[in-house]
């Protein structure tokens, strides 16, 4: 390890770093702008200058840029030397000549990297008295504000947006003092990751638009370490609350999962928390109308109804926490607990879980995905269904350029040189899907076909890799040669990766993905890196629910429907809108047959409207519980703000019932978690998260609010001038307060990183403070990350035999195309996300149109086995033949894989107006 000396102090630092990384890793304050831990160095801003001396005798030294200079043994450096300090102050003075003096009205104020660095550099007096250049700003859509006057031309935005995230509509225009970062013309930024510009920009050029519409400074927000609930990846987030409203979501660093970046659905999709139609207190149906009642009365109603009805079934949910699902299962008994999903989604989830169990196959984290060098995406458009993973896949594809640079001994942080050396080199990415995806432009080859044909392709890949794997029948020559090409690429890669998911709705495709991994494991030499296989799931706790119900004989919604046909039965429906799960007529019939309908949920829904008793559940922002992500990583959720008096965690409602149905083991969050530990053998590792006497968290108080939080005791003065006591949190190491352990002390505690509600450190007010909580700038948080991987039992189910592709079937196969915006239940209640949603329409291949006598622009009746719907039709050559590609908002038209028929209702006069108005978020 190189030994260097900085200002007389000797240090040992990791080899291969640059001086800026080394200094920050040592906890030294060296200001910077253009460098970003994920984007590397370009040496553009000249802010991280320090003095390097030739030898002991050298008294002059020379200025070097920290981010552009590699550490080397014996370096003698100074941060504090006058020459270096004056240079840095001069640089910032020059940067500030055009920067407006608008901090009081700037959304970035109080968490601005530019403010922090300016103060750090000691430039506190403006001498420049000339005119400042001004720009016309652009409307960049519902997510991002644009205020170009504040730009200091660090180029971070472009390097993230274009180079890192693959966006094609943000550009650097003009030059010198007139450099302008914007689009060719006004319009929403197209990238699904544009929201990260809010954090990537070191000043207030790109700011959070929904936040600025109801603005609160970071120091006045209350935060908690939380988990995103908008897909199955479990990205770590830091939501901020004030006055009982969730104001914004920011990234919370997780080394293995999201790193520094979120997707825009995760960042802007929280509107369901503040939704005006959200149930605020228990509702009891009287004379056909729902009447609001107090929590105590709601509880009494629940108890009374549980007593009066003999048979109960419980319907769980893949978006409810493990604790809530388990509490319901315990209440009604495992035999009467259903997942709330149909048999087909349940089978898909179980098949995806089997992929995680494959022995010898690696389940990669998103970070590990970035290091893969041959990728096969099977039937899942991850940009739409697990967006943050698509960003990681982009980094994997770019890895070919990094490898090329590494072969030339270019350090990985030399971003510009790496890019030039890499040119357009790409690791091979193969995409098999029913239609075009956003990753197609960087793919080596794409295959567009029905899910069955895609499964055949994957089985053929497996057969090419390992002749023992049964070959599919009837694959055409083109697909065969593609299969050979894919097999070749996966076989010779250092770290091959296969990704699949449930969106295609085809069980054989999921099994085929496992077959490829198994064949790859057999075909590759024993010493080679094991192949990686990662499934994505549909929802934030799909895997948790699957783990709870995998051995149940009856867990499907259809079985619950059948049960209701035999004798009177009541149902408790947990955080689930059944109309999204099964065809409307079936759900309607089920709800009508029930003698009691109790719905516990945090959002409005048609199912909730049919309830006799509604119990308002907490949203993720008020919940304490556990979610299990797609890799089998259990992560805890903590409430951002104290519970609203009339709301409870779903499991708390159930645990409050007394009498013979009283629940044991749900007295507190810790108690509930302890019950989860014993619920299934594979959940045992959760015990690590339990508080114990030896656990440091029981002694610490980690404040949820920054220490400058203002007006805290007066926040409720409009209701009552008496100061209430701050809410107490007896269930975690966090407090609903600005008082508690100070950040510098916390930063030295092992294991606290995963519990940080927000990142802040003296002198570092922006999210960039996170490096203060790490041992190495490019490493994980000190003492580990949030959550723990479960020990899933390995199981090898042998080879799957490919089924022949059914060519005789009548009708088009319905496939629901997921969508990042407008495709997910919770984020659809957020106005900015809804605004980005595409008009829902049916898409079919042009060759399929004549057979049904339909044409582009028609309004079409789509009829499935159990239900029908009307949609505008788009004829789209990118859709595979034989497929009816349905929008994500389409209600289920049948159970399981459904074939549909089409009938034209004439040209669509409503195509411009049938987009429902977004509700306030």
């Amino acid at each position, binding site marked *: 390890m190189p030994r260097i000396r900085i200002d007389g102090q000797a240090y040992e630092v990791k080899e291969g770093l640059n001086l800026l990384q080394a200094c920050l890793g040592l906890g030294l304050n060296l200001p910077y702008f253009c460098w970003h831990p994920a984007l590397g160095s370009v040496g553009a801003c000249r802010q991280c200058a320090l003095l390097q001396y030739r030898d002991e005798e050298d008294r002059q030294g020379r200025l070097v840029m920290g981010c552009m200079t590699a550490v080397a043994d014996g370096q003698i450096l100074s941060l504090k030397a006058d020459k270096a300090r004056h240079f840095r102050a001069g640089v910032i003075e020059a940067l500030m000549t055009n920067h407006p003096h608008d901090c009081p009205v700037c959304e970035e104020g109080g968490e601005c990297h530019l403010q922090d660095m300016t103060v750090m550099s000691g430039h506190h007096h403006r001498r420049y008295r000339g005119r400042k250049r001004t720009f016309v700003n652009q409307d960049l859509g519902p997510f991002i504000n644009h205020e170009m006057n504040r730009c200091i031309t660090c180029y971070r935005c472009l390097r993230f947006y274009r180079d890192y995230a693959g966006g*094609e509509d943000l*550009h650097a*225009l003009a*030059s010198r003092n007139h450099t302008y970062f914007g*689009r*060719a013309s006004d319009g929403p930024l197209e990238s699904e990751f544009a929201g990260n510009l809010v954090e990537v920009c070191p000043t207030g050029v790109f700011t959070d638009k929904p936040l600025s519409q109801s603005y609160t400074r970071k120091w006045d927000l209350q935060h908690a370490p939380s988990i995103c609930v908008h897909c199955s990846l479990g990205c770590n987030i830091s939501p901020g609350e004030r006055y009982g409203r969730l104001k914004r979501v920011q990234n919370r660093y997780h080394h293995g999962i999201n790193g520094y970046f979120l997707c825009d659905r995760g960042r802007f999709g929280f509107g369901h928390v503040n939704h005006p139609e959200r149930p605020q207190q228990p509702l009891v149906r009287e004379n056909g109308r729902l009447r609001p009642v107090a929590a105590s009365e709601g509880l009494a109603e629940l108890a009374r109804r549980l007593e009066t009805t003999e048979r109960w079934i419980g319907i769980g949910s893949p978006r409810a926490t493990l604790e809530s699902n388990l509490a319901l299962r315990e209440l009604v008994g495992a035999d009467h607990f259903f997942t709330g999903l149909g048999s087909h989604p349940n089978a898909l989830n179980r098949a995806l879980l089997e992929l995680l169990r494959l022995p010898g196959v690696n389940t990669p984290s998103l970070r590990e995905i970035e290091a893969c060098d041959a990728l096969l995406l099977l039937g899942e458009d991850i940009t739409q269904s697990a967006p943050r993973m698509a960003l990681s896949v982009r980094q994997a594809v770019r890895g070919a350029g990094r490898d090329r640079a590494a072969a030339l001994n270019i350090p990985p942080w030399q971003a510009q040189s790496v890019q030039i050396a890499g040119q357009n080199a790409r690791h091979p990415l193969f995409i098999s899907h029913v239609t075009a995806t956003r990753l197609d432009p960087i793919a080596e080859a794409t295959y567009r076909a029905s899910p069955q044909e895609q499964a055949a392709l994957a089985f053929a890949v497996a057969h090419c890799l390992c002749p023992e794997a049964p070959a599919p029948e009837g694959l055409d020559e083109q697909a065969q040669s593609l299969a050979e090409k894919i097999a070749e690429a996966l076989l010779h890669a250092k770290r091959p990766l296969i990704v699949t998911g449930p969106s295609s709705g085809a069980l054989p495709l999921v099994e085929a993905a496992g077959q490829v991994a198994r064949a790859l494991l057999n075909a590759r030499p024993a010493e080679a890196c094991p192949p990686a296989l990662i499934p994505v799931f549909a929802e934030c706790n799909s895997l948790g629910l699957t783990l709870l119900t995998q051995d149940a004989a009856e867990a499907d919604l259809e079985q619950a429907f059948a049960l209701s046909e035999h004798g009177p039965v009541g149902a408790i429906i947990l955080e689930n809108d059944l109309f999204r799960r099964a065809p409307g007529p079936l759900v309607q019939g089920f709800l009508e047959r029930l003698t009691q309908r109790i719905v516990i949920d945090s959002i409005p829904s048609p199912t909730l409207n049919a309830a006799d008793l509604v119990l308002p559940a907490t949203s993720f922002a008020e919940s304490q519980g556990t979610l299990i992500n797609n890799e089998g990583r259990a992560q805890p959720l903590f409430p951002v703000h104290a519970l609203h008096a009339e709301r409870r965690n779903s499991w708390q409602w159930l645990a409050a019932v007394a009498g013979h149905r009283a629940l044991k083991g749900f007295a507190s969050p810790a108690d509930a978690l302890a019950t989860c530990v014993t619920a299934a053998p594979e959940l045992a590792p959760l015990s690590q998260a339990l508080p114990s006497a030896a656990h440091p968290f029981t002694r610490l108080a980690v404040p949820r609010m920054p220490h400058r939080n203002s007006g805290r005791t007066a926040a409720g003065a409009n209701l009552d001038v008496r100061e209430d006591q701050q809410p107490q949190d007896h269930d975690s190491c966090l407090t609903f307060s600005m008082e508690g352990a100070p950040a510098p002390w916390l930063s030295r505690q092992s294991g606290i990183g995963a519990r940080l509600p927000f990142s802040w450190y003296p002198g570092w007010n922006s999210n960039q403070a996170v490096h203060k909580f790490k041992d190495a700038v490019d490493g994980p948080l000190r003492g580990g990350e949030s959550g723990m991987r479960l020990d899933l039992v390995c199981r090898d189910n042998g080879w799957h035999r490919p089924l022949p592709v059914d060519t005789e079937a009548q009708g088009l196969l319905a496939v629901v195309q997921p969508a990042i915006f407008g495709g997910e239940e919770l984020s659809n209640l957020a106005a900015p996300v809804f605004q980005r949603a595409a008009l829902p329409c049916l898409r079919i291949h042009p060759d399929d149109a004549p057979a049904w006598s339909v044409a582009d622009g028609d309004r079409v009746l789509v009829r499935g086995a159990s239900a029908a719907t009307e949609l505008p039709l788009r004829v789209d050559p990118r859709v595979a033949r034989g497929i009816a590609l349905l929008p994500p908002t389409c209600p289920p038209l049948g159970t399981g894989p459904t074939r549909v028929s089409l009938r034209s209702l004439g040209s669509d006069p409503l195509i411009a107006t049938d987009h429902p108005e977004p509700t306030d978020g």
Partner: protein
Amino acid sequence: MHLGPELSPLERQEIEAECAHYPERRAAAIEGLKVVQKHRGWVSDGSLQALAELLQMPVGELEGVATFYNLIFRQPVGRHVILLCDSVCCWIKGRDDLNRRLCQRLGIKPGETSADGQFTLLPTVCLGDCDRAPTLMIDHQQHGNLTPEKIDRLLDQLQAPGGEDG
């Protein structure tokens, strides 16, 4: 000849010839912009869009190239573009007097186009002709050792009916 936003066959042909020099079409961005400007005097939004499509690149990226170079004009310019050097040699030798005379004769300020659409006056950095300072360039013709009187003669020539390159 008035040209619509669509590129003319001649423009396309010249741009294609440039593309042939590079492995990637977008590499011909600068040459493509020069071709368009040669035929139209400036690059309109419509031509920019058409060129971006021809070069298979995002229009914003091409705009980034076009606006980086101050001699690619993204606004209409006069029939004659006068580039008056404002570097140090020319400044010492009296370029400010030339500037005053030009402004006075044409009734415009630097950066503007005369009302009759004949002249655009732009300051420019060094024209590389310092031994003949002060100097300027009109269209593609360089003129050195200038005085306000010589400016008058130059403008007279250009303004005369059937003047230079009429």
